[in-house]
């Protein structure tokens, strides 16, 4: 964008030559990279729509010669897709909703309420962002075992409710809102709860959307915790089911596995299309909100 103003100035002849070639080379280079990035996904979709016998055809047919949905029927025959999808949906939806609530409330408290130990408590929350999940997984597993929550979906859901990053994000979000709004309401006699409920909470929707979309994206694809916590097939989520589909498929067809991958991708792609903006903002905010 900034180049637009540059090019209106007279440029030295040498760089003029570069400019006439530059844009095309640049776009071509980017296009090749975009192809490499999307290629595996395109291959996955097209192979899943091919007749199983054509899975390994080389060169790969991007447009299937004999298209069919046999592979998709195969997925439904071999694993209980509906159950896996239901499990994944339950976990993801409840975690996203839970994180929006906990992060919204805690973020507001850190941003707009005055209380003792506000700074050290916020420091504690931030510090936990540094702790890798795998370092705490054994004790977390034992805590959940003592609560009888291993091999249940609740065991996946409840520990995921608190979100340090979401809390940080919502605190920044509330800090960005004008303070006068709350002060005006206070002069009108509104208490702290009224101020939150009627003034600030309604403005927080876009921030909460970021927290929700990030939570969806992370937990829909989550693999490590389900792998450890869920031991019986009826509690598997989609990623676990897919890997097991590939595992017991020494003889079967690739296209069935890939059809499963495509099915599990669909909701993530839908969120990518609908929620691209909050998703991008959420990811970028890590680097820019300094």
């Amino acid at each position, binding site marked *: 964008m*900034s*180049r*637009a*103003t540059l*090019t209106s*100035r007279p440029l030295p002849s040498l760089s003029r030559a*570069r400019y006439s070639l530059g844009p095309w080379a*640049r*776009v071509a280079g*980017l296009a090749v990279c*975009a192809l490499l*990035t*999307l290629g*595996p*996904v395109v*291959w996955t979709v097209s192979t899943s729509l091919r007749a199983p016998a054509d899975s390994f055809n*080389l060169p790969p047919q991007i447009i299937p010669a004999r298209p069919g949905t046999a592979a998709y029927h195969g997925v439904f025959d071999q694993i209980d897709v509906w159950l896996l999808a239901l499990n994944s949906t339950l976990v993801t939806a409840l975690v996203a909703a839970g994180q929006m*609530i*906990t*992060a919204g*409330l805690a973020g507001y*408290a850190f*941003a707009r309420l*005055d209380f003792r130990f*506000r700074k050290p408590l916020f420091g504690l929350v*931030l510090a*936990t962002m*540094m*702790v*890798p999940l*795998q*370092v705490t*997984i*054994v*004790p977390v*597993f*034992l*805590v959940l075992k003592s609560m009888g929550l291993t091999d249940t979906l609740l065991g996946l859901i409840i*520990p995921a*409710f608190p979100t*340090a*990053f979401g809390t940080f994000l919502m605190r920044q979000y509330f800090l960005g809102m004008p303070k006068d709004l709350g002060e005006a309401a206070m002069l009108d006699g509104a*208490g*702290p709860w009224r101020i939150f409920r009627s003034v600030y909470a309604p403005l927080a929707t876009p921030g909460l959307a970021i927290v929700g979309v990030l939570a969806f*994206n992370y937990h*829909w694809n989550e*693999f*490590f915790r389900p792998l450890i916590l869920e031991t019986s097939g009826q509690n598997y989520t*989609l990623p676990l089911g*897919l*890997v097991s589909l590939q595992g017991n498929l020494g003889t079967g067809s690739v296209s069935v596995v890939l059809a499963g*991958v495509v099915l*599990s991708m669909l909701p*993530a792609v839908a969120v990518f299309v609908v929620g691209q903006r909050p998703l991008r903002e959420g*990811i*970028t905010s*890590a*680097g*820019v909100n*300094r």
Partner: protein
Amino acid sequence: MTDTRIPAVRPRAATPPVTAPRRSARGRGARLLAALFLAPTVTGIVVFTVVPIIGSVVLSLFHWDVIDPPGFAGAANYREVFTDSTVLVSFRNTLVFMVFAVAAQLLVALSLALTLNGRMPGWLRSVFRSAFFFPLVLSAASISVVMKYLFNQDFGVVNWLIGLVGIAPVPWLTSELGAMATVIIVYVWQQFGFSFLLFVGGLNNIPREIHEAAALDGATGLRKHLALTLPLLSPTLLVASVVGIINALQVFEQPYVLTDGGPGDSTRTVVMVIYEKAFEQLRFGEASAVGVLLFVLIMAVTAVQFRLSRRFVHYQ
């Protein structure tokens, strides 16, 4: 997708204290409300992060297989772990993986972000941007399943493609070097979009006047980037590399699905060892010891980075 636990973000200086009168009914109301609002997050973090960290350290000092009651082990688990060749190899693999994966991820992301920053129609720019960050929304586990087919030595698309330019088939998943390279490629393919988005955001924050002034002085192309853009982008580079390294040290799904740590132990990573020791061999004490070591490693690497950054990072 990318991990949402993102460190290295420094909070803005705390806001000036709220001016509500102290000790009034209103101040008490606010404190009560704060306690209620914070309860879920703080309780959750204490139960599921703070206590487990302490638990990990304590557990690493005990022998425990769940069946028999735990017995105090002192430093025995650590001695065991330090003489276990699988553990040592897993740390070496993870460090090798981290160096190459993070370097590749940053290089790819930075070149693409700089290239995308050039002159082109807006719709094209957003098409490219969407393409580059699309892999982030996919599951690392299922993408690894897909890649396992693509990198197959005999019938994979990758060997067919490089065959077109006359390169002999590479034993991607069945040789030690090839397996590590594949794990790195698959990881970078999925993760570079994260650093890419950070860089795009960082580039947008560089004031336009600086570019204009540089152009007037005749700075163009690579020289302009080296002398001007990179120093201005250095805070973003710091965040991208800190987050990149922390995530890379925790790599699990890709080697677990692609190679299961093989051939031999050549792609076994630290997190795979934690998983195997705890949940396959029921050696919770040793698993915790490895976990504590990983935590120390992550902290040390991050601390070194921040130390170095004082010299290389320029804040505007």
